[in-house]
C-alpha cells in the first residue's frame, strides 16, 4: 500500500520533482507483511459500490500493468494473472442479500451472473448444491495474481521515479500542538514535525523532517497511530478514539487432491464462509476459513494450527465438494489481516486532529486487490485536496467519531 501511494504521488505530481517522497520499511524481506502472505485474489463482488469501483480499476491496472509500472531497460512485469471468477454460494437466508449485492455490482459496471442450483450442477458437476439457493459468479476482472510481483513492480517503478527507500523502523514522532477552543470543548490539534526512524541493528535514531505522513503500516497501523497520539487522550474526547486496526491471524492451507474439481475450479466461497481455489495445474488447491470471534488465534507469531483445518475446514469442504473427502494437506502458512474491528472496511483519509497524518489501512483482507485504486485515491487527496476518480468519503476516519460504520457484507 505504501509503495502504491508513493508511485501514485510521483505519477500525479504536476511537475517532475515537485514532491520528495520517502518510504520507510521495517522489513525489506517482507517476512510478516500481509501483502506477500496473501492468497492474491481479486474480485468485484462487494456490496459497497466504492469497493466494486476500486476492484474494477485495479483489474484494469493489472491488465495494463506494463504500461503503468514498466521501467525502461528492465524486464517486463509478469503478474501471473489467472482469470477465473469468484463463485459465491448463498443459502436460503443469504439469497436476498446476494441478489442485492449483484444488483449493486452490475450498477457499477461489473459483469456478474446469477446461477440457480441446476445451472450450478450443470456447470460444476463436482459441486454439491445442497442448501444452495442461488450463486453469483464473476464473469470478468476476477482471478488471482502474484502479490510479490505487484509489490516489487510498484517498488521498482517508484524508485525509478525518485522515491527514497529507507530501511528502518519508525519509533516515534515529534509533534507540535495547538489548542483550539470550541463551544463544546477544547480541542488539541497536533502536527507531526519529525519522524524518528531507528536504523536496523543499531541504536541510532534518525529524525526525518517531513510535512506529511501516510500511515500504510498494515496490521501495525494502530500501533503507529498511537505513536502520533491517536487514541491516547482524555476519555470521552475525540483524542481518545483510536485507529481500530489490529492484526488478525488467518491460515491458508494447500492440499493435493488428484480427482478434484480440475482446471475449471473457480474461487468458491461457501455459505459457511469457507473458501478454496485451484493452485497451479498439478491438482493442488488452497483455501481457508475466517474463524469466528471466539476462535481468533493468537497473533504473537505466524505458526499454523493444523487442527483448525482438521476440525473446522475439512468437514465443510467435504460437504460442499464430495471429492475432497480424501485429500492430503501439503503445506500451510499464516498471515495477518489488517483487521478493522469497527466495520472491516478501509480507513482512507486524514485524521481530524493530527493534521498531517493520512491513513490508508484497515482493508481487512482485501487490501492487495485494492492497492492500485486506493493508492491513486490517496495521491489525489494529498495533491488536489479531494478525491477525483473514486469518492472515498465513506472510508474517512470521521466515521469512527460519528459512529456510522460502512459495512461490507462480502467479507471472506
Amino acid at each position, binding site marked *: 500500500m505504501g509503495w502504491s501511494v508513493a508511485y501514485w504521488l510521483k505519477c500525479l505530481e504536476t*511537475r517532475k520533482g515537485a*514532491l520528495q517522497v520517502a518510504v520507510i520499511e521495517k522489513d525489506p524481506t517482507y517476512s510478516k507483511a500481509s501483502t506477500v502472505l496473501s492468497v492474491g485474489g481479486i474480485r468485484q463482488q462487494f456490496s459497497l459500490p466504492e469497493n466494486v469501483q476500486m476492484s474494477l480499476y485495479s483489474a484494469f491496472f493489472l491488465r495494463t500493468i506494463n504500461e503503468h509500472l514498466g521501467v525502461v531497460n528492465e524486464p517486463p512485469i509478469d503478474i501471473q494473472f489467472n482469470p477465473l471468477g469468484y463463485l459465491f454460494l448463498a443459502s436460503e437466508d443469504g439469497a436476498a442479500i446476494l441478489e442485492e449485492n449483484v444488483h449493486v455490482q452490475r450498477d457499477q459496471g461489473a459483469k456478474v451472473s446469477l446461477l440457480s442450483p441446476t445451472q450450478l450442477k450443470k456447470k460444476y458437476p463436482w459441486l454439491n448444491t445442497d442448501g444452495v439457493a442461488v450463486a453469483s459468479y464473476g464473469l470478468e476482472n476476477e482471478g488471482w495474481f502474484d502479490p510479490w510481483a505487484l509489490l516489487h513492480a510498484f517498488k521498482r517503478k517508484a524508485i525509478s521515479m525518485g522515491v527514497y527507500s529507507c530501511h528502518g523502523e519508525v519509533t516515534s514522532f515529534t509533534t507540535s500542538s495547538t489548542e483550539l477552543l470550541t463551544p463544546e470543548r477544547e480541542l488539541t*490539534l497536533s502536527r507531526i*514535525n519529525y519522524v524518528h526512524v531507528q536504523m536496523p541493528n543499531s541504536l541510532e535514531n534518525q529524525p526525518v523532517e517531513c*510535512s506529511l505522513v501516510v500511515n500504510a503500516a498494515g496490521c501495525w497501523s494502530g500501533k503507529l497511530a498511537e505513536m502520533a497520539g491517536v487514541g491516547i487522550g482524555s476519555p470521552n474526547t475525540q483524542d481518545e478514539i483510536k485507529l481500530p486496526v489490529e492484526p488478525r491471524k488467518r491460515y491458508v492451507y494447500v492440499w493435493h487432491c488428484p480427482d478434484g474439481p480440475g482446471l475449471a475450479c473457480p474461487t468458491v466461497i461457501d455459505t459457511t464462509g469457507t473458501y478454496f481455489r485451484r493452485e497451479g495445474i498439478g491438482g493442488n488447491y488452497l483455501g481457508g476459513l475466517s474463524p469466528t470471534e471466539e476462535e481468533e488465534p493468537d497473533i504473537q507469531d505466524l505458526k499454523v494450527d493444523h487442527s483448525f483445518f482438521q476440525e473446522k475446514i475439512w468437514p465443510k469442504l467435504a460437504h460442499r465438494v464430495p471429492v475432497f473427502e480424501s485429500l492430503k494437506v501439503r503445506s500451510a502458512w499464516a498471515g495477518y489481516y489488517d483487521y478493522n474491528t469497527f466495520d472491516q472496511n478501509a480507513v482512507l483519509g486524514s485524521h481530524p486532529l493530527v*493534521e498531517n497524518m493520512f491513513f490508508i489501512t484497515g482493508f481487512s483482507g482485501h487490501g492487495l486487490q485494492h492497492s492500485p485504486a486506493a493508492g491513486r485515491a490517496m495521491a489525489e487527496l494529498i495533491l488536489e485536496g479531494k478525491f477525483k476518480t473514486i469518492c472515498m468519503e465513506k472510508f474517512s476516519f470521521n466515521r469512527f467519531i460519528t459512529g456510522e460504520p460502512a459495512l461490507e457484507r462480502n467479507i471472506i
Partner: protein
Amino acid sequence: MLKIIIPTIMLIPTTTMCKPTQLWYTTLIHSMLISLLSLQLFYPSLQPIMNFSNHNLQQNQTSTPLIILSCWLTPLMILASQNHLSTEPLSRKRTFIITTIILQMLLIMTFSTTDLIMFFVLFEATLIPTLMMITRWGNQMERLNAGTYFLFYTLMGSLPLLVALLSLYSNTNSLSILTMQLSPTMLKNTWTNSMWLLAALTAFMIKMPLYGLHLWLPKAHVEAPIAGSMILAAILLKLGGYGIIRIMSTTNFLSKTPYYPFMILALWGIIMTSLICLRQTDLKSLIAYSPVSHMGLVTAATLTQTEWAYTGAITLMIAHGLTSSLLFCLANTKLRRIHSRTLLLTQNMQLLLPLMGTWWLLASLTNMALPPTINLMGELTIITSLFNWSNTTIIITGLGTLITATYTLHMFSSTQWGELPQHIKIMTPSHTREHLIMTLHILPMMLLMMKPELIWGPLYC
C-alpha cells in the same frame, strides 16, 4: 564613517554581555539605531563638495546606498532569525548574532574603503561569516555541499583578482580609487590588458552571478537559513556589481572586445534563468534563481559604461536587494508553518493568512517591476542604455521582462490561490514580528519611490 563602524563593533560585546531575556530586542534596537544613524550618510551625496576626514574610508554615491542597505538589513536579519533559533541554547544564539554583526561590519568597510587591496581583503573576508551561517545553521544536509560550492566558486575567481590588483599596483604604485582615475593606465589595446581585465572581473562576475558561473547561487540561497538568504540576496550579490563599477570607472579601459563574452553570457542568462524559474517546484529555489536574471541585467549595464547604465545598475541593485530579501522572508514564514518548500503543498494561503497575502502581492508586483517602483526605474534605465548600445538587445531584455512577469505571477498564484491543502487544518496566525519585517522591507521601497535620486549613483543627469 567611524561613527557607524565603532557602534557596530561594540554591538559584539553587547551581545555577549546582555541578559538572556533581553538578547533579541537589545540587539534589534541597537542595530536599528545604527541603521537610522547611517541614513545621514545620504547627506553629503546631495552636496557638490565631499569633505572627509579619513583618507581610507570614504563613500560616494555608488557606495552610500549599499552601505545603508547593509545597515538596514541587519535588524531585519535579527528579526527574521528569532523564530528558528528559539530552540537553540543561549551561547549559540549569541554566536549567530555576532556572526551577523561581523558580517555587517565587514560589509560597511568593504563599501566605504578607498583602497582596492583593502576592498579585496574585505571582499574575501565577508565569505567567512556567510559560510559559517550557511553550514552551521542551514536546514538540510545539502548545506555542506552548498557551502563548498559557495566558497570555492568565489575563491577561484578571487585569485586572478589578487594577481590583477598586484600587477596594477606594480604599475601605478598606488591602488587608491581617488587617484587612479587620474593616472593613465590600460590605455593600450594589448592582449595583456585584455587578460588583466578578465582576471579582474572574473571574481565579480562569479559573485553577481553571471549566467555560466551561477551554480553556487541556488544551492547557497536554498540551504542558508533565512538570515543568510536575506543577506546573500540583498547585499553579497551586489558586492560583485559594486566591484565591477569600481574597476571599470577607475581603470580607463579602451578596448571593447574583452567585454563581449561577459555581455553575451549576461544577456543570455536573463532569459535562461527566467525560464528555469518557470520550471521550479521548490519555492525557495524559484526565489533564488530570480536574482541571477536581474543581476544579468545589471552586469550587462555596467559593462556598457554609460551614465544611464550606471544609474540603472545601482538603482536596480538596491531595489532588487530589498525585493529579494522580502521574498525570502515571505517564503520563510511559509516554511516555518508547513516544513516543506514544495510549491504543490502550499496552496491557497490567501484564505488562511490574508494579510500575508497582501505582502506576497506587493513583493510579486515589485519583483515584476511594476511602475512606479524603483525596480521599474532601474530596469527601464538599463534597458534603454542597452538599446542605445545595441538595438537588438531590446528583444532579449523585453523577453526577459515578460518571462519574469510570468514566473512571478505563477509563484503568486500557486501560493495564494488553488485548492486548500488537506493537511493544514490549523495554522498559527502571522506574528506581528513577521508583519514588521515585511513592512520594514516595503517602507524603504515606498520612500525611495518618492526620492529616487538618493540611489541614482554619481552619474545621474
